[in-house]
């Protein structure tokens, strides 16, 4: 008894924070050991949204994986779509037409805008700035209108196909996009005014969750969180895929890797992404959007309706699935949270033998204890927000 109570100061309180706690997004549990308000120890438990993504992929055809990728990072589903499609195309060894590449870039960047907006908005919400949250939700709603116009769904888009896209850009898309961006920029600057220079906000996020660059690399950080540490690593620049090498955009980097840097990087990336979309719309070439390989890209309905051989071939590809050659590839794209890698193994059958995702927020979440030890319990809120842990991606 006296041993425990000997020192009043080191009396600890162990609290379950999560899984069903507003800050943990319902999908993670922090086991927090508190001394007063200070975090002595933090254990992270994930897996509350483990839905067996890889197992489901292995039991479906290559095409049927697309809906599952939508739900990996459900904040930016299009990037997941594109990443998976690129990986399969790399496995097969096909190159998609120019126009398709541009449209994919537009889709990716729209998705990234929505992702960062959601993230900053949620960060604001959990720090109590409800109005900033709703301004960005409003802006995101507009971006989603664009995505819906393009893909036919708001969140789970299922838009990209192996060797192409489901459909082309709709009419009037460019004009609508420019209109939407105009309003988005207004809302962006409103949020900027509400948060960026507001000392209450700065006090909350600055010097919290700092991470030295080397340590961040060792922990496997990628994306905005790594760039906030001052490392300008961006897959779009390092290994340009699609037509990112033709786009003129800057990579925002921070200095200390604290939450304020992460926030600033994300805010700036929204701007850069809007620039990219505008450039891509400007440079958009004509031409087809799908590869002319009926075996890998499901055939056009014209052929199916009119030609019996096409119809039979269609039945074969749908029922058996397309069959990429045996082999394995790893392909990384820059998703909202960082490097999203797809590692595919094909055994030459119609189903993926192995479809592994390298989730960008997985290492970020793993570094939570490192970032939180010795801080206050309230610091969990901005830190966890700014690493933007997405359950679907982290737990798969």
């Amino acid at each position, binding site marked *: 008894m006296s041993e425990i109570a000997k020192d009043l100061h080191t009396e600890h309180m162990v609290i379950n924070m999560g899984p069903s706690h507003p800050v943990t997004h319902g999908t993670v549990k922090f086991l927090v050991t508190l001394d007063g308000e200070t975090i002595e120890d933090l254990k992270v438990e994930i897996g509350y949204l483990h839905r067996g993504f890889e197992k489901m992929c292995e039991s479906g055809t290559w095409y049927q994986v697309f809906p599952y990728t939508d739900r990996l990072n459900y904040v930016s589903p299009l990037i997941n779509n594109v990443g998976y499609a690129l990986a399969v195309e790399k496995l097969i060894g096909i190159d998609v037409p120019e126009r398709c590449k541009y449209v994919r870039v537009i889709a990716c960047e729209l998705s990234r805008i929505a992702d960062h907006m959601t993230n900053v908005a949620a960060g604001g919400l959990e720090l109590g700035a409800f109005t900033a949250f709703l301004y960005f939700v409003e802006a995101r709603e507009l971006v989603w209108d664009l995505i819906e116009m393009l893909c036919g769904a708001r969140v789970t888009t299922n838009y990209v196909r192996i060797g192409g896209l489901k459909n082309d850009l709709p009419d009037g898309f460019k004009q609508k996009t420019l209109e939407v961006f105009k309003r988005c920029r207004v809302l962006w600057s409103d949020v900027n005014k509400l948060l960026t220079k507001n000392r209450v906000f700065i006090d909350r996020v600055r010097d919290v969750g700092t991470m030295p660059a080397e340590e961040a690399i060792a922990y496997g950080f990628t994306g905005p969180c790594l760039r906030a540490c001052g490392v300008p690593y961006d897959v779009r620049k390092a290994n340009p895929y699609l037509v990112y090498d033709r786009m003129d955009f800057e990579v925002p980097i921070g200095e200390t890797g604290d939450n304020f840097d992460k926030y600033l990087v994300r805010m700036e990336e929204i701007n850069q992404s809007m620039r990219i979309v505008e450039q891509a719309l400007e440079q958009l070439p004509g031409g087809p959007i799908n590869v002319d390989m009926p075996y890998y890209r499901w055939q056009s309905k014209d052929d199916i309706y009119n030609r019996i051989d096409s119809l039979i071939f269609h039945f074969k590809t749908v029922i058996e699935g397309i069959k990429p050659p045996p082999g394995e590839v790893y392909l990384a794209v820059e998703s909202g949270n960082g490097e999203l890698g797809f590692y595919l193994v094909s055994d030459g059958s119609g189903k993926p033998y192995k479809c592994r995702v390298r989730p960008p927020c997985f290492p970020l979440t793993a570094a939570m204890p490192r970032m939180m030890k010795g801080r*206050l319990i309230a610091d969990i809120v901005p830190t966890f927000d700014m690493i933007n842990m997405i359950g679907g991606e982290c737990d798969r």
Partner: protein
Amino acid sequence: MSEYIHVLIMLVLAAATAGGMLVATSLIGPKKSFIDKMEPFECGESPIVSPKLRFSVKFYLVALFFVIFDIEAVYAYPWAVLFKELGLFGFIEMMIFLTILAIGLIYVWRRGALEWDR
């Protein structure tokens, strides 16, 4: 005195309202209790420790400073009311008083008793 009776009436009315609410809510409304429900909420898990632990001594220090500075404020009220009558003399008087307590504030500040994140 009549003013205080008004206060009393107000207090009684307030108490009656609040009490009435408590009684009403305890009478109306369905009730059902079982162990799982009666456990304190902890994000859908069972609590690991009971909250009957001792908490940090910092909270005690806050209450302590509060007591001291509250007394200070209490002395300041009559002084503020009388300020114009007491004039310079009263001002100096109070400044000495405040300075001595400001020393106390600076002491606790220096001592780090006002630091919450250690």
